[in-house]
């Protein structure tokens, strides 16, 4: 069955305003308790740097950007990495309880599995690069920075939505 059909038939998601309020309270608690916001993309960079450090230590140590992970004691004891593990568990529990858990390659109806692999991986490359350039992603810069009224958050979020709309106009058949 088409995944979108399933979604339409049994859309058991919460109201986005309720979920958003919960997300906001989680972010606020993070500010109050630890003194910084939520993040995500830096965990991917950390694991990539450490992975390369295992595969090819000589080459990894030549890459200056990765020295922030390779030259510290116990780099895996990283706040964002632990937060991402919690994120996975929370989303897993939510999708199991909500009955949304299903192993699949999610894609638009007409899209081939091969095209989906390319769009998922290619999009990921852009996201990974862009997140490092912007010093964070939708979590660390847009959501956390936006909530602080930091210029960073609002510049990022506006640029992201504008370019997403332009890209959607150019690639109309990608998802719709």
């Amino acid at each position, binding site marked *: 069955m088409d995944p979108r059909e399933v979604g339409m038939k049994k859309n058991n998601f919460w109201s986005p305003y309720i*979920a958003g309020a919960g997300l*906001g309270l989680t972010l606020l608690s993070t500010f109050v308790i630890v*003194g910084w916001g939520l993040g995500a993309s830096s965990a991917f960079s950390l694991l990539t740097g450490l992975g390369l450090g295992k595969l090819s230590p000589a080459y990894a140590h030549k890459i200056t950007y990765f020295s922030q992970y390779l030259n510290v004691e116990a780099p895996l004891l990283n706040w964002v990495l632990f937060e991402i593990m919690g994120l996975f568990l929370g989303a897993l529990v939510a999708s199991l309880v909500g009955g949304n858990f299903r192993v699949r390659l*999610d894609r638009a109806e007409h899209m081939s599995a091969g095209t989906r692999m390319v769009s998922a991986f290619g*999009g990921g490359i852009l996201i990974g690069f862009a997140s*490092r*350039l912007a010093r964070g*992603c*939708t979590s660390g810069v847009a959501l956390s920075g936006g*909530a602080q009224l930091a210029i960073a958050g609002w510049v990022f979020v506006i640029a992201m939505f504008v370019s997403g709309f332009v890209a959607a106009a150019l690639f109309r058949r990608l998802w719709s």
Partner: protein
Amino acid sequence: MVMSAPFMVSQTAGLVLAVVLGFFFGLFLERGGLGDPHKLTGVFYLTDFSVPKVMFTGMLVAATGLYLLSDLKILDMHRVWIVPTFFWPQLVGGALFGIGFLFSGYCPGTAVAGLASGRLDALVTMGGIGAGSLVFAIVYPAIEGFYFSSPMEGATLPSVLGLNHWVVMAFVYLMAGGMFYVMERYERKR
């Protein structure tokens, strides 16, 4: 007690809290529909507005609480790490990010939520994010100048505009309220 927050916690306590806070982050993302790439890209095709609704509601709630607790002298804002601004790299980064978001149907956090709901394409995106981080690290020496350009470290809308934060918040409430109203009306019409 006045100005006790943010609390200084030990590293171990901090990591335990990271898992707990992350748990709720993931729970609300998935329950808001943000583990689903169709919903995540829907905003760009004007078919589903879950992303801006969840995101801006979250921002408003957190911003209101943050500035309120600061005004009530419960939270010391000077000890909260403010996301640093580097205008041009973040503008270009945000624009590139939007294209990647549309192609993959995810962002880093929502890809993890997508994988947690059984989506293997989210795992492929996570691999791509790692690869993109590697590409950035490799070309970093060549773009270091740009990366550190236009620094406005710690700049916020109230500080740059020279306005009280509640004046800025009033604009944000109006903007978000107007946006929610338009999105609701548009969705009802379809």
